[in-house]
Protein backbone atom coordinates (compact mmCIF):
# COMPACT_ATOMS: atom_id res chain seq x y z
CA UNK A 1 0.00 0.00 0.00
CA UNK A 2 1.58 3.29 -1.01
CA UNK A 3 1.53 5.72 1.87
CA UNK A 4 3.21 9.07 2.25
CA UNK A 5 5.64 9.27 5.13
CA UNK A 6 5.67 12.95 6.22
CA UNK A 7 9.21 14.34 6.16
CA UNK A 8 8.56 16.90 8.90
CA UNK A 9 9.27 14.42 11.71
CA UNK A 10 11.44 11.48 12.77
CA UNK A 11 10.69 7.77 13.13
CA UNK A 12 11.59 4.74 15.27
CA UNK A 13 12.01 1.16 14.11
CA UNK A 14 9.03 0.32 16.36
CA UNK A 15 6.85 2.54 14.13
CA UNK A 16 6.40 5.63 16.29
CA UNK A 17 6.79 9.13 14.90
CA UNK A 18 8.16 12.05 16.92
CA UNK A 19 7.95 15.73 16.06
CA UNK A 20 9.18 18.83 17.84
CA UNK A 21 6.42 21.42 18.34
CA UNK A 22 7.18 24.53 20.41
CA UNK A 23 9.88 22.76 22.39
CA UNK A 24 7.72 19.70 23.13
CA UNK A 25 8.06 16.33 21.45
CA UNK A 26 4.75 15.03 20.12
CA UNK A 27 4.54 11.26 19.57
CA UNK A 28 2.19 8.99 17.63
CA UNK A 29 2.25 5.77 15.65
CA UNK A 30 2.74 5.65 11.90
CA UNK A 31 0.31 4.95 9.11
CA UNK A 32 2.14 1.67 8.54
CA UNK A 33 1.65 0.68 12.19
CA UNK A 34 -2.08 1.45 12.23
CA UNK A 35 -2.55 -0.39 8.94
CA UNK A 36 -0.85 -3.47 10.39
CA UNK A 37 -2.95 -3.27 13.56
CA UNK A 38 -6.34 -2.80 11.92
CA UNK A 39 -9.23 -1.17 13.81
CA UNK A 40 -7.82 0.34 17.00
CA UNK A 41 -10.29 -0.09 19.87
CA UNK A 42 -8.27 0.82 22.96
CA UNK A 43 -5.31 3.05 23.81
CA UNK A 44 -3.45 2.94 27.12
CA UNK A 45 -1.27 6.02 27.65
CA UNK A 46 1.01 7.20 30.49
CA UNK A 47 -0.23 9.96 32.78
CA UNK A 48 1.25 13.45 32.79
CA UNK A 49 4.41 13.50 34.90
CA UNK A 50 5.43 9.92 34.04
CA UNK A 51 9.13 9.55 33.31
CA UNK A 52 9.74 7.74 30.03
CA UNK A 53 12.90 6.28 28.53
CA UNK A 54 13.95 6.01 24.92
CA UNK A 55 13.23 2.54 23.56
CA UNK A 56 11.12 1.51 26.57
CA UNK A 57 7.36 0.73 26.44
CA UNK A 58 5.22 3.64 27.65
CA UNK A 59 1.77 2.55 26.57
CA UNK A 60 -0.24 0.18 24.43
CA UNK A 61 -2.51 0.22 21.44
CA UNK A 62 -5.04 -2.57 20.95
CA UNK A 63 -6.94 -3.52 17.84
CA UNK A 64 -9.49 -6.21 17.05
CA UNK A 65 -6.49 -8.23 15.86
CA UNK A 66 -3.74 -7.70 18.41
CA UNK A 67 -2.14 -5.62 21.14
CA UNK A 68 1.03 -3.65 20.56
CA UNK A 69 3.36 -1.72 22.89
CA UNK A 70 4.07 1.94 22.22
CA UNK A 71 7.72 2.83 22.84
CA UNK A 72 9.01 6.22 23.85
CA UNK A 73 11.29 7.65 21.16
CA UNK A 74 13.21 9.80 23.69
CA UNK A 75 14.03 10.21 27.38
CA UNK A 76 11.76 12.68 29.10
CA UNK A 77 8.58 13.38 31.06
CA UNK A 78 5.00 13.13 29.78
CA UNK A 79 3.42 16.57 29.53
CA UNK A 80 0.04 15.60 28.12
CA UNK A 81 -1.81 12.62 26.74
CA UNK A 82 -4.36 12.96 23.97
CA UNK A 83 -7.69 12.58 25.78
CA UNK A 84 -9.51 12.73 22.45
CA UNK A 85 -7.76 9.61 21.15
CA UNK A 86 -8.49 7.74 24.39
CA UNK A 87 -12.23 8.17 23.90
CA UNK A 88 -12.07 7.86 20.08
CA UNK A 89 -9.30 5.35 19.32
CA UNK A 90 -10.33 5.21 15.66
CA UNK A 91 -8.59 8.59 15.24
CA UNK A 92 -5.37 6.56 15.12
CA UNK A 93 -6.65 4.75 12.02
CA UNK A 94 -8.17 7.82 10.40
CA UNK A 95 -5.47 10.40 11.08
CA UNK A 96 -2.32 8.81 12.55
CA UNK A 97 -0.08 11.81 11.82
CA UNK A 98 -2.59 14.43 12.96
CA UNK A 99 -5.46 14.17 15.45
CA UNK A 100 -4.39 10.59 16.25
CA UNK A 101 -1.27 11.77 18.16
CA UNK A 102 -0.77 10.02 21.51
CA UNK A 103 1.37 12.02 23.97
CA UNK A 104 3.60 15.06 24.24
CA UNK A 105 6.91 14.76 26.05
CA UNK A 106 9.23 17.26 27.73
CA UNK A 107 12.45 15.66 26.57
CA UNK A 108 15.67 15.72 24.68
CA UNK A 109 14.85 17.45 21.39
CA UNK A 110 18.39 16.97 20.11
CA UNK A 111 17.94 13.19 20.41
CA UNK A 112 15.39 13.30 17.56
CA UNK A 113 18.34 13.62 15.18
CA UNK A 114 19.35 10.08 16.15
CA UNK A 115 16.02 8.65 14.89
CA UNK A 116 15.21 7.67 11.32
CA UNK A 117 14.37 10.20 8.65
CA UNK A 118 11.17 9.79 6.60
CA UNK A 119 13.24 8.36 3.75
CA UNK A 120 14.98 5.85 6.02
CA UNK A 121 11.69 4.83 7.62
CA UNK A 122 9.98 4.38 4.24
CA UNK A 123 12.82 2.10 3.13
CA UNK A 124 12.68 0.12 6.38
CA UNK A 125 8.93 -0.50 6.12
CA UNK A 126 9.15 -1.47 2.45
CA UNK A 127 11.38 -4.35 3.54
CA UNK A 128 8.91 -5.27 6.28
CA UNK A 129 5.87 -5.44 3.99
CA UNK A 130 4.46 -8.95 4.01
Amino acid sequence: MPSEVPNDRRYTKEHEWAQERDGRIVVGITHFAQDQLGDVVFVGLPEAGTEVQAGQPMGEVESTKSVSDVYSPVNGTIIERNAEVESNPELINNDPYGSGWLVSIDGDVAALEGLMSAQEYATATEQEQP
Partner: protein
Amino acid sequence: MGQRKTPLLDLHVELGAKLTEFGGWDMPLQYEGIIAEHNAVRGSCGLFDVSHLGKLRLTGPAAQDALQQALTCDVSALGSDQASYALVLTDGAGCIDDVFVYRLGDDEWMVVPNASNVAAVAQAIAEAGGQPADEWDRYAILALQGPDSFAVFTKVFHGSDATALPLHRWTYLDMSGHQGIVARTGYTGERGFELYVPSEVAREVAQALLDSGATPAGLGARDTLRLEMGYALYGHEIDLETNPLEAGLGWAIKWDAPFRGRDALLKIREQGPKRKLFGCKLTDRGVPRQGYEVSRDGETVGTIVSGNYSPTLRTGIALAYAPIDKLPRPGDQVEIQARGRLLSADIVKPPFIRDDRSSTEK
Protein backbone atom coordinates in the same frame (compact mmCIF):
# COMPACT_ATOMS: atom_id res chain seq x y z
CA MET B 1 1.42 -19.19 2.24
CA GLY B 2 -1.15 -21.94 1.86
CA GLN B 3 -1.30 -24.54 -0.88
CA ARG B 4 -5.06 -24.67 -1.37
CA LYS B 5 -6.63 -21.81 -3.23
CA THR B 6 -10.16 -20.49 -3.02
CA PRO B 7 -11.62 -19.82 -6.48
CA LEU B 8 -12.26 -16.30 -5.18
CA LEU B 9 -8.63 -15.44 -4.36
CA ASP B 10 -8.27 -13.01 -7.28
CA LEU B 11 -11.53 -11.30 -6.32
CA HIS B 12 -10.33 -10.87 -2.72
CA VAL B 13 -7.10 -9.29 -3.91
CA GLU B 14 -9.04 -6.93 -6.21
CA LEU B 15 -11.27 -5.99 -3.28
CA GLY B 16 -8.19 -5.05 -1.25
CA ALA B 17 -8.39 -7.90 1.25
CA LYS B 18 -5.67 -8.54 3.79
CA LEU B 19 -5.06 -12.27 3.50
CA THR B 20 -4.18 -14.68 6.28
CA GLU B 21 -3.04 -18.29 6.23
CA PHE B 22 -5.79 -20.47 7.66
CA GLY B 23 -5.58 -24.27 7.71
CA GLY B 24 -3.45 -24.31 4.55
CA TRP B 25 -5.53 -21.70 2.72
CA ASP B 26 -4.94 -18.02 2.03
CA MET B 27 -8.21 -16.45 3.17
CA PRO B 28 -9.40 -12.86 3.63
CA LEU B 29 -8.90 -11.65 7.20
CA GLN B 30 -10.48 -8.28 6.46
CA TYR B 31 -11.26 -5.84 3.67
CA GLU B 32 -12.32 -2.38 4.84
CA GLY B 33 -11.95 -3.22 8.52
CA ILE B 34 -13.25 -5.77 11.02
CA ILE B 35 -15.62 -3.38 12.80
CA ALA B 36 -17.21 -2.04 9.61
CA GLU B 37 -17.68 -5.58 8.29
CA HIS B 38 -19.08 -6.80 11.61
CA ASN B 39 -21.58 -3.95 11.65
CA ALA B 40 -22.56 -4.64 8.03
CA VAL B 41 -23.55 -8.20 9.02
CA ARG B 42 -25.48 -7.06 12.11
CA GLY B 43 -27.14 -4.17 10.26
CA SER B 44 -27.59 -5.26 6.65
CA CYS B 45 -25.76 -8.09 4.88
CA GLY B 46 -22.24 -9.47 4.66
CA LEU B 47 -20.67 -12.03 2.33
CA PHE B 48 -17.94 -14.33 3.65
CA ASP B 49 -15.77 -16.71 1.66
CA VAL B 50 -15.45 -19.80 3.86
CA SER B 51 -14.22 -22.13 1.12
CA HIS B 52 -11.50 -23.34 3.48
CA LEU B 53 -14.11 -25.42 5.31
CA GLY B 54 -13.81 -29.12 4.53
CA LYS B 55 -16.09 -30.93 2.08
CA LEU B 56 -16.14 -34.65 2.72
CA ARG B 57 -18.61 -36.62 0.62
CA LEU B 58 -19.83 -40.10 1.50
CA THR B 59 -21.96 -42.31 -0.68
CA GLY B 60 -23.30 -45.82 -0.45
CA PRO B 61 -25.38 -47.86 1.96
CA ALA B 62 -22.60 -48.13 4.60
CA ALA B 63 -22.24 -44.35 4.96
CA GLN B 64 -25.12 -43.82 7.40
CA ASP B 65 -23.85 -46.35 9.94
CA ALA B 66 -20.34 -44.95 9.75
CA LEU B 67 -21.56 -41.39 10.32
CA GLN B 68 -23.85 -42.51 13.12
CA GLN B 69 -20.77 -43.83 14.91
CA ALA B 70 -18.49 -40.93 14.07
CA LEU B 71 -20.91 -38.06 14.85
CA THR B 72 -22.83 -37.13 18.00
CA CYS B 73 -26.09 -36.13 16.30
CA ASP B 74 -28.88 -38.49 15.26
CA VAL B 75 -27.78 -39.03 11.67
CA SER B 76 -30.56 -41.56 10.95
CA ALA B 77 -33.22 -38.97 11.83
CA LEU B 78 -32.04 -36.50 9.18
CA GLY B 79 -34.24 -36.14 6.13
CA SER B 80 -32.59 -35.62 2.75
CA ASP B 81 -33.25 -31.88 2.94
CA GLN B 82 -31.68 -31.45 6.38
CA ALA B 83 -28.37 -30.56 7.97
CA SER B 84 -27.21 -30.81 11.56
CA TYR B 85 -24.43 -29.61 13.82
CA ALA B 86 -22.44 -32.44 15.40
CA LEU B 87 -19.24 -33.19 17.25
CA VAL B 88 -16.62 -35.79 16.39
CA LEU B 89 -15.21 -37.32 19.58
CA THR B 90 -12.31 -39.49 20.65
CA ASP B 91 -12.92 -42.62 22.72
CA GLY B 92 -12.21 -40.42 25.76
CA ALA B 93 -14.87 -37.87 24.62
CA GLY B 94 -12.31 -35.24 23.61
CA CYS B 95 -13.33 -33.12 20.60
CA ILE B 96 -11.67 -34.06 17.30
CA ASP B 97 -13.79 -31.37 15.62
CA ASP B 98 -17.20 -29.82 15.30
CA VAL B 99 -18.88 -30.22 11.92
CA PHE B 100 -22.06 -29.74 9.94
CA VAL B 101 -23.44 -32.87 8.28
CA TYR B 102 -25.76 -32.60 5.27
CA ARG B 103 -27.93 -35.49 4.16
CA LEU B 104 -27.95 -35.08 0.38
CA GLY B 105 -29.93 -38.25 -0.37
CA ASP B 106 -30.77 -41.68 1.04
CA ASP B 107 -27.17 -42.79 0.65
CA GLU B 108 -25.37 -39.51 0.04
CA TRP B 109 -23.86 -37.20 2.65
CA MET B 110 -21.55 -34.24 3.01
CA VAL B 111 -19.59 -33.54 6.18
CA VAL B 112 -18.14 -30.04 6.64
CA PRO B 113 -15.25 -29.93 9.16
CA ASN B 114 -12.95 -27.06 10.07
CA ALA B 115 -10.11 -26.59 7.57
CA SER B 116 -7.39 -27.66 9.97
CA ASN B 117 -9.25 -30.83 10.98
CA VAL B 118 -10.27 -32.30 7.63
CA ALA B 119 -7.72 -35.12 7.82
CA ALA B 120 -8.60 -35.97 11.43
CA VAL B 121 -12.34 -36.06 10.69
CA ALA B 122 -11.80 -38.14 7.55
CA GLN B 123 -9.77 -40.56 9.64
CA ALA B 124 -12.43 -40.76 12.35
CA ILE B 125 -15.08 -41.50 9.72
CA ALA B 126 -12.83 -44.11 8.10
CA GLU B 127 -12.26 -45.75 11.50
CA ALA B 128 -16.04 -45.97 11.81
CA GLY B 129 -16.19 -47.81 8.47
CA GLY B 130 -16.91 -44.89 6.12
CA GLN B 131 -15.10 -43.86 2.96
CA PRO B 132 -15.08 -40.06 2.81
CA ALA B 133 -13.90 -38.39 -0.41
CA ASP B 134 -12.21 -35.01 0.05
CA GLU B 135 -13.88 -32.71 -2.46
CA TRP B 136 -12.01 -29.59 -1.31
CA ASP B 137 -11.96 -27.88 -4.71
CA ARG B 138 -15.44 -28.78 -5.94
CA TYR B 139 -17.24 -25.86 -4.30
CA ALA B 140 -16.61 -22.40 -3.02
CA ILE B 141 -18.55 -21.91 0.22
CA LEU B 142 -20.11 -18.48 0.61
CA ALA B 143 -21.87 -17.34 3.78
CA LEU B 144 -24.46 -14.65 3.13
CA GLN B 145 -25.48 -13.33 6.54
CA GLY B 146 -27.47 -10.46 7.98
CA PRO B 147 -31.00 -9.03 8.24
CA ASP B 148 -30.94 -8.12 4.51
CA SER B 149 -29.54 -11.47 3.36
CA PHE B 150 -32.90 -12.74 2.09
CA ALA B 151 -33.42 -9.63 -0.04
CA VAL B 152 -29.90 -9.85 -1.49
CA PHE B 153 -30.32 -13.56 -2.19
CA THR B 154 -33.64 -13.01 -3.95
CA LYS B 155 -32.16 -10.31 -6.18
CA VAL B 156 -29.63 -12.82 -7.51
CA PHE B 157 -31.76 -15.98 -7.44
CA HIS B 158 -35.19 -14.65 -8.45
CA GLY B 159 -36.96 -17.96 -8.83
CA SER B 160 -35.63 -19.67 -5.73
CA ASP B 161 -37.88 -20.44 -2.78
CA ALA B 162 -34.89 -21.02 -0.46
CA THR B 163 -36.01 -18.09 1.70
CA ALA B 164 -38.93 -20.30 2.78
CA LEU B 165 -36.59 -22.99 4.13
CA PRO B 166 -36.60 -23.47 7.89
CA LEU B 167 -33.30 -23.24 9.75
CA HIS B 168 -30.85 -26.07 8.96
CA ARG B 169 -32.66 -27.14 5.79
CA TRP B 170 -31.05 -27.04 2.36
CA THR B 171 -32.02 -27.33 -1.27
CA TYR B 172 -30.32 -27.65 -4.64
CA LEU B 173 -30.09 -24.41 -6.55
CA ASP B 174 -29.21 -23.63 -10.16
CA MET B 175 -26.19 -21.32 -10.15
CA SER B 176 -25.38 -20.08 -13.66
CA GLY B 177 -26.26 -23.45 -15.14
CA HIS B 178 -24.42 -25.46 -12.48
CA GLN B 179 -26.00 -27.30 -9.58
CA GLY B 180 -25.13 -25.80 -6.22
CA ILE B 181 -26.52 -26.11 -2.71
CA VAL B 182 -28.08 -23.43 -0.54
CA ALA B 183 -28.57 -24.07 3.17
CA ARG B 184 -30.15 -22.05 5.97
CA THR B 185 -27.07 -22.20 8.15
CA GLY B 186 -24.51 -19.75 9.50
CA TYR B 187 -22.13 -18.77 12.27
CA THR B 188 -23.05 -15.17 12.99
CA GLY B 189 -26.37 -15.23 14.86
CA GLU B 190 -28.07 -13.44 11.97
CA ARG B 191 -30.46 -14.91 9.45
CA GLY B 192 -28.81 -16.05 6.27
CA PHE B 193 -27.54 -18.77 4.00
CA GLU B 194 -24.46 -20.76 3.25
CA LEU B 195 -24.06 -21.44 -0.45
CA TYR B 196 -22.03 -24.30 -1.91
CA VAL B 197 -21.17 -22.80 -5.26
CA PRO B 198 -19.54 -24.94 -7.96
CA SER B 199 -16.00 -23.58 -8.34
CA GLU B 200 -16.45 -22.78 -12.06
CA VAL B 201 -19.12 -20.17 -11.32
CA ALA B 202 -17.98 -19.07 -7.84
CA ARG B 203 -16.63 -15.74 -8.91
CA GLU B 204 -19.70 -14.91 -10.96
CA VAL B 205 -22.05 -15.74 -8.05
CA ALA B 206 -19.96 -13.86 -5.47
CA GLN B 207 -19.80 -10.80 -7.72
CA ALA B 208 -23.58 -10.88 -8.26
CA LEU B 209 -24.20 -11.02 -4.50
CA LEU B 210 -21.81 -8.10 -3.92
CA ASP B 211 -23.43 -6.12 -6.73
CA SER B 212 -26.80 -6.75 -5.07
CA GLY B 213 -25.75 -5.12 -1.82
CA ALA B 214 -23.69 -7.60 0.21
CA THR B 215 -20.58 -6.22 1.92
CA PRO B 216 -17.46 -8.39 1.67
CA ALA B 217 -16.57 -9.61 5.15
CA GLY B 218 -13.49 -11.49 6.33
CA LEU B 219 -12.59 -14.07 8.92
CA GLY B 220 -11.82 -11.32 11.46
CA ALA B 221 -15.46 -10.23 11.52
CA ARG B 222 -16.59 -13.86 11.44
CA ASP B 223 -14.71 -14.35 14.70
CA THR B 224 -16.11 -11.27 16.48
CA LEU B 225 -19.63 -12.19 15.29
CA ARG B 226 -19.44 -15.77 16.57
CA LEU B 227 -17.90 -14.61 19.85
CA GLU B 228 -20.82 -12.22 20.50
CA MET B 229 -23.10 -15.25 20.10
CA GLY B 230 -20.92 -17.43 22.36
CA TYR B 231 -20.43 -20.00 19.60
CA ALA B 232 -17.54 -22.43 20.07
CA LEU B 233 -14.49 -22.21 17.80
CA TYR B 234 -12.22 -25.22 17.47
CA GLY B 235 -8.82 -24.60 19.08
CA HIS B 236 -10.41 -22.20 21.58
CA GLU B 237 -13.53 -23.49 23.38
CA ILE B 238 -13.07 -27.06 22.14
CA ASP B 239 -10.08 -29.26 21.36
CA LEU B 240 -8.84 -32.80 22.02
CA GLU B 241 -8.51 -32.03 25.75
CA THR B 242 -12.06 -30.64 26.04
CA ASN B 243 -15.29 -32.60 26.29
CA PRO B 244 -18.63 -31.26 24.99
CA LEU B 245 -20.23 -30.97 28.44
CA GLU B 246 -17.64 -28.58 29.84
CA ALA B 247 -17.93 -26.56 26.60
CA GLY B 248 -21.70 -26.25 27.08
CA LEU B 249 -22.41 -28.33 23.98
CA GLY B 250 -24.57 -31.00 25.61
CA TRP B 251 -27.40 -29.96 23.25
CA ALA B 252 -25.35 -31.36 20.34
CA ILE B 253 -25.35 -34.87 21.83
CA LYS B 254 -27.96 -37.45 20.90
CA TRP B 255 -27.47 -39.64 23.95
CA ASP B 256 -29.25 -42.76 22.71
CA ALA B 257 -27.23 -42.83 19.47
CA PRO B 258 -24.20 -45.18 19.38
CA PHE B 259 -21.51 -42.52 18.81
CA ARG B 260 -17.82 -42.93 19.57
CA GLY B 261 -16.88 -41.51 22.96
CA ARG B 262 -20.35 -42.15 24.38
CA ASP B 263 -19.21 -44.35 27.30
CA ALA B 264 -16.65 -41.80 28.43
CA LEU B 265 -19.12 -38.95 28.02
CA LEU B 266 -21.81 -40.78 29.99
CA LYS B 267 -19.33 -41.13 32.85
CA ILE B 268 -18.54 -37.42 32.70
CA ARG B 269 -22.25 -36.63 32.74
CA GLU B 270 -22.73 -38.84 35.79
CA GLN B 271 -19.86 -37.28 37.72
CA GLY B 272 -20.39 -33.78 36.37
CA PRO B 273 -17.77 -31.91 34.30
CA LYS B 274 -14.65 -30.81 36.19
CA ARG B 275 -14.60 -27.36 34.58
CA LYS B 276 -17.02 -25.16 32.67
CA LEU B 277 -17.08 -22.36 30.17
CA PHE B 278 -18.34 -18.94 31.29
CA GLY B 279 -18.70 -15.47 29.79
CA CYS B 280 -17.12 -12.15 30.86
CA LYS B 281 -18.17 -8.67 29.78
CA LEU B 282 -15.71 -5.90 30.60
CA THR B 283 -16.71 -2.84 32.58
CA ASP B 284 -13.21 -1.35 32.16
CA ARG B 285 -11.72 -0.27 28.86
CA GLY B 286 -9.41 -2.85 27.33
CA VAL B 287 -9.41 -6.01 25.27
CA PRO B 288 -9.35 -9.49 26.84
CA ARG B 289 -7.25 -12.04 24.97
CA GLN B 290 -6.76 -15.81 24.85
CA GLY B 291 -4.50 -16.91 27.71
CA TYR B 292 -5.29 -14.04 30.11
CA GLU B 293 -6.17 -15.17 33.62
CA VAL B 294 -9.43 -14.36 35.37
CA SER B 295 -9.36 -13.69 39.11
CA ARG B 296 -11.88 -12.99 41.85
CA ASP B 297 -10.87 -11.31 45.12
CA GLY B 298 -7.23 -11.81 44.15
CA GLU B 299 -7.55 -15.53 43.52
CA THR B 300 -7.10 -16.92 40.00
CA VAL B 301 -10.31 -18.72 38.99
CA GLY B 302 -10.02 -19.22 35.24
CA THR B 303 -8.32 -18.71 31.89
CA ILE B 304 -9.66 -16.99 28.77
CA VAL B 305 -9.91 -19.11 25.61
CA SER B 306 -11.51 -16.47 23.33
CA GLY B 307 -11.54 -12.73 23.86
CA ASN B 308 -11.96 -9.64 21.75
CA TYR B 309 -13.66 -6.30 21.42
CA SER B 310 -17.40 -6.56 20.75
CA PRO B 311 -18.30 -4.01 18.06
CA THR B 312 -22.00 -4.31 19.00
CA LEU B 313 -21.51 -3.78 22.77
CA ARG B 314 -18.46 -1.53 22.31
CA THR B 315 -16.60 -3.28 25.08
CA GLY B 316 -14.43 -6.33 25.61
CA ILE B 317 -16.02 -9.79 25.88
CA ALA B 318 -14.46 -13.18 26.59
CA LEU B 319 -15.16 -16.87 27.05
CA ALA B 320 -13.11 -18.57 29.77
CA TYR B 321 -12.81 -21.89 31.56
CA ALA B 322 -12.85 -22.33 35.34
CA PRO B 323 -12.69 -25.42 37.56
CA ILE B 324 -16.20 -26.24 38.71
CA ASP B 325 -15.50 -25.37 42.38
CA LYS B 326 -14.34 -21.88 41.41
CA LEU B 327 -16.83 -21.25 38.61
CA PRO B 328 -18.08 -17.64 38.71
CA ARG B 329 -21.84 -17.13 38.36
CA PRO B 330 -23.77 -14.59 36.31
CA GLY B 331 -23.83 -11.36 38.30
CA ASP B 332 -20.42 -11.99 39.88
CA GLN B 333 -17.61 -9.53 39.31
CA VAL B 334 -14.11 -10.61 38.34
CA GLU B 335 -10.82 -9.09 37.20
CA ILE B 336 -8.98 -9.99 34.04
CA GLN B 337 -5.19 -9.82 34.20
CA ALA B 338 -4.26 -8.02 30.99
CA ARG B 339 -0.55 -7.46 30.61
CA GLY B 340 -0.06 -6.01 34.07
CA ARG B 341 -3.41 -4.19 34.21
CA LEU B 342 -6.46 -5.49 36.07
CA LEU B 343 -9.66 -5.06 34.05
CA SER B 344 -13.00 -5.37 35.84
CA ALA B 345 -15.62 -7.56 34.22
CA ASP B 346 -19.14 -8.83 34.91
CA ILE B 347 -19.97 -12.51 34.53
CA VAL B 348 -22.74 -12.92 31.97
CA LYS B 349 -24.37 -15.91 30.36
CA PRO B 350 -23.64 -16.04 26.61
CA PRO B 351 -24.87 -15.04 24.07
CA PHE B 352 -23.41 -11.63 24.85
CA ILE B 353 -25.96 -9.94 22.62
CA ARG B 354 -29.51 -10.86 23.49
CA ASP B 355 -31.82 -12.73 21.19
CA ASP B 356 -34.41 -9.96 21.24
CA ARG B 357 -33.93 -8.89 17.64
CA SER B 358 -36.38 -10.49 15.22
CA SER B 359 -33.61 -11.18 12.70
CA THR B 360 -31.47 -13.14 15.13
CA GLU B 361 -31.32 -16.88 14.80
CA LYS B 362 -29.17 -19.58 16.23
